[in-house]
């Protein structure tokens, strides 16, 4: 019974996304992209499967990211801005429950969206190869990592949108995503440099920004390489911890916020 306010908000958030046209546009785009990947794969004989997997996984990731950011920045802001929160928060629901529901709602949206795109992707793969191979199972791992990544991006968006405008939240989230995707390089730079302050800074940035580079396994998976189980475990724990910290921080900010 206690979690039912969270569940109600989650379902309503999902319903809002489903009724939002933007989602269909993005899904349509994804379908077109996968279709063109198939076409492209047919032209370049020999490496078509590698290309298809790479392209398919990147498009699932990119479109997921677009949806996460587009919907994420408005998740809380729109309710404050349009004042729909007034009526909701005068019901027996705590602000943290609202926030958690919103977060989970967008995650459900992204999950459903990813399921659809993944189905299209497998279909394209089958169309090209007429069979599945053993190492194809690691595609599931790559998709799982994309979901983790999207969940983290959602948490970042939610955090920023608790105290800044949608545009700024989008910019911050996007910047953080880019920096996070190069986090391995940042660490590498820190190891190479001889300047102590730069070393300290790069170490600091490495630990502060979300480590998205560990989530991209499209290249090895496309080449049929295995993804180590420890990486799956580490990425899972990492996402859980990082997203929890962001969520708790968002809740702390939001619980004290004047809704004026």
């Amino acid at each position, binding site marked *: *019974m206690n979690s039912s306010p969270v569940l*109600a908000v989650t379902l309503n958030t999902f319903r809002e996304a489903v009724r939002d046209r933007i989602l269909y546009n993005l899904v349509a785009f994804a379908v077109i992209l996968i279709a063109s990947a198939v076409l492209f794969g047919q032209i370049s004989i020999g490496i078509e499967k590698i290309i298809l997997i790479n392209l398919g996984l990147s498009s699932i990731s990119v479109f997921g990211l677009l949806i996460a950011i587009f919907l994420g920045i408005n998740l809380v802001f729109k309710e404050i801005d349009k*004042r729909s929160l*007034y*009526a*909701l928060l*005068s019901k027996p629901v705590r602000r943290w429950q609202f926030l958690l529901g919103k977060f989970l709602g967008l995650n459900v949206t992204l999950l459903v969206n990813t399921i659809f795109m993944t189905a299209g992707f497998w279909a394209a793969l089958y169309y090209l190869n007429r069979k599945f191979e053993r190492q194809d199972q690691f595609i599931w791992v790559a998709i799982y990592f994309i979901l983790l990544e999207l969940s983290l991006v959602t948490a970042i968006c939610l955090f920023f949108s608790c105290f800044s405008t949608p545009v700024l939240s989008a910019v911050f989230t996007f910047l953080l995503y880019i920096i996070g995707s190069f986090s391995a390089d940042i660490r590498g730079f820190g190891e190479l440099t001889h300047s102590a302050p730069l070393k300290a800074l790069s170490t600091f940035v490495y630990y502060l920004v979300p480590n998205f580079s560990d989530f991209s396994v499209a290249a090895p998976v496309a080449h049929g390489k295995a993804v180590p189980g420890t990486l799956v475990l580490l990425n899972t724990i990492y996402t859980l911890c990082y997203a929890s910290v962001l969520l708790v921080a968002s809740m702390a900010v939001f619980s004290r916020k*004047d*809704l*004026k």
Partner: protein
Amino acid sequence: MTAIQISGLTKDYQIGFWRKRPWRALDGLSLEVERGEVFGFLGHNGAGKTTTLKLLTGLIFPTAGTAKVLGKPVGQPETFRHLGYLPENPYFYDYLTAQELLDYFAHFFQMDAGLRVRRREEMLKLVGLDSFRDMPLRKFSKGMLQRIGIAQAVLHDPEIVLLDEPMSGLDPMGRREVRDLIVQMKAEGKTVFFSTHILSDVEALCDRVAILNRGKLVGVGRLSELLRQRSGVEAVVECASSCSAELQHLASKPVTVSGGQYRLEIQEENMPRFLAFCQTEGVRLVSLNPIRASLEDYFTELSQSASDGEHVSSGVSAL
């Protein structure tokens, strides 16, 4: 038992873009609303009514002071089981239909499916949106939004109902229906606390009213008490300017002058002296009218004396 207890409630908003400075929207409001009362909260635009109601629902946090609803601090989920709130110019999820909105809100009240449907149907009928149940809220007019806003406020049959300008945006029929609804809630023993700037609504409905001006409470009490203070007559006279000092002395509030005529208010007990004065000094009486015992006058007078108090008195002293 008191339904709403407000003590020393103060709210500063931070305004200004570059250099933030506090703006006092509500200044030390203390007020008690008894259970079963219909309480009117009056004030001009910007007086601080909405601010007070948002403080009572925990949407914003006070700079100082406290507010309690049913003896508990505001903003607790438990309190909201017994509290309904209609925000000012309400806005709801525009992708939902009226029916879906009520269903959604009902989920927060641990109602079982049967009760949920029953309450939803009752509410849709109550506010006259029965035939618009499947229309998305984005197509709703202002008055319809106000109606669905009222429906969601009383959906869970709360003991206390806070309504922020419940009649605004409604046509005459709608206003009448809201008035009837408030009367009905009173009959059921509910406490209704509503803000308005429309005095006729208050006159017809309220047990007690509070009057707010620029964030400060300027009057609170039973309607009859507030009105009694204003009995007397309004006189318009023509006389030599040498009489003005004595006229001011007899009047119960600052005298105004226009077109050589003096307009003044005189309390019942001063009437004999006033009439005697007019006879001996040859003051020509233009008109003499009993002051209409209406809240409107009380209200405008209070608000005016607070805002242009200095202006009026300086005008008289210049006579």
